[in-house]
């Protein structure tokens, strides 16, 4: 058989493409539920890690249901709103950050409770040097002091910007406050790596060589938390 005839080439290419396409579509479709579940479990793990609850993928769901006692959705004005058919957990902050205008986005809030003590967990989304970065930040009951944080990224440079997903960087946020003494919102900013931030309540030392990613973390905190300010303030007044 002459394999270099035009007819054969067309037939061969068509069959190859159909076979490969079908095989890939089949694998992707059959693995999709598992992949989605992995993503959901990872999200639960991340939210829990923010409040220092370690969990394996297997126990993530159980622990999540136990500790996260309330899920709220805020609109862009910082008012708790009911959105039909939407729960806080379903909101993909990264996707909304990329595709929706700031005033259309939903702002989830997870309330964690352990032994009567409440922590408030806020999801963040922003951009690093190469692609999206995201994370969660948890506040103490005073809605001011950072209790813990987790960050992650899609394509930041390994060893540089990608270090935002490491504990040593995330621990630098603990104990920082987002309101200054007169109660104004100042957020927590990330400054160029190597800066002395000893005793600074609103500054975090960035990653040397990962300045743009570090700045991205600071920017997404400032922008996102700003939306929650009315809610935090209102809640504090109600508590007084």
């Amino acid at each position, binding site marked *: 058989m002459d*394999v*270099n005839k035009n007819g054969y080439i067309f037939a061969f*290419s068509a069959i190859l493409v159909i076979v490969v396409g079908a*095989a890939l579509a089949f*694998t992707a479709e059959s693995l999709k539920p598992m*992949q989605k579940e992995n993503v959901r479990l990872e999200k639960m793990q991340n939210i829990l890690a923010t409040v220092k609850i370690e969990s394996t993928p297997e126990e993530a769901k159980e622990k999540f249901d136990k500790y996260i006692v309330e899920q709220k959705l805020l609109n862009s004005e910082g008012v708790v709103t009911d959105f039909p058919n939407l729960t806080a957990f379903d909101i993909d902050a990264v996707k909304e950050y990329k595709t929706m205008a700031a005033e259309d986005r939903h702002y989830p809030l997870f309330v964690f409770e352990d032994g009567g003590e409440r922590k408030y967990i806020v999801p963040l989304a922003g951009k690093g040097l190469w692609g999206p970065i995201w994370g969660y930040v948890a506040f103490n009951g005073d809605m001011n002091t950072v209790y813990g944080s987790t960050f992650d990224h899609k394509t930041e440079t390994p060893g540089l910007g990608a270090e935002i997903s490491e504990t040593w960087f995330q621990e630098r946020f603990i104990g920082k406050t987002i309101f200054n003494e007169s109660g104004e919102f100042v957020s927590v900013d990330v400054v160029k790596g190597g800066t002395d931030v000893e005793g600074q309540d609103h500054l975090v030392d960035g990653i040397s060589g990962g300045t743009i990613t570090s700045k991205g973390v600071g920017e997404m905190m400032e922008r996102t938390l700003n939306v929650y300010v009315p809610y935090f303030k209102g809640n504090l007044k109600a508590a007084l």
Partner: protein
Amino acid sequence: MSETAEATQEVAVEPKEPLFSTKNKRLLSDPLNDDNPITIQVLGICSALAITVQVKPSFVMAVSVLFVMIGANLIVSWMRNLIPSRVRIIVQLVIVAALVILVDQFLKAFLYDVSKQLSVFVGLIITNCIIMGRLEAFALGNKAWPSFLDAIGNAAGYGWILIAVAVVREFFGSGKLWGFQLIPQSFYDFGYADNGLMILPPMALITVGIIIWVQRSRNTKLIEEN
């Protein structure tokens, strides 16, 4: 990316040749040293630069490349008499791309942690010149068994260079290996500092260059006559 077009190697396989004949053994051992894809053929340099900052991703990358190479070499070798030569490159590309997507999907479903660690680099296996190079130079002209050995040999030759470079870069760049701190804090207290340049891509090129230098000075076969 420099790519040396290599003439198709014909390995004459006797009908009843033993599975591990001298020739077949050389298919496994040559790429480790005398015919290393990275240091001698200078293929696959892109990924050697991109992912060798740390040892762990380099290792997983090497394993993934091993899988894709074995799969692609076998499939192309089985189909070698059916593939029209005029469209062979695109056919090879489709096969490699399909395998890479399979790896990526399986990692995402069953080894989610590893898949996250490698992120975009899994997809970049498609562009690894070594894979296309071996398909073009070997699998198209040889039976399945030698192609299988050739795939293992070349993936191993690629993998060990990758890991060697990653060891140097991670150790001197961040004082760690496989994520574990090796250089004790007391060294840092005495004023030792990690070499920041090691983390950047140019140092990978320099490290590969040093490996080539050492290899050429030790291996007399590689010294060219002028």
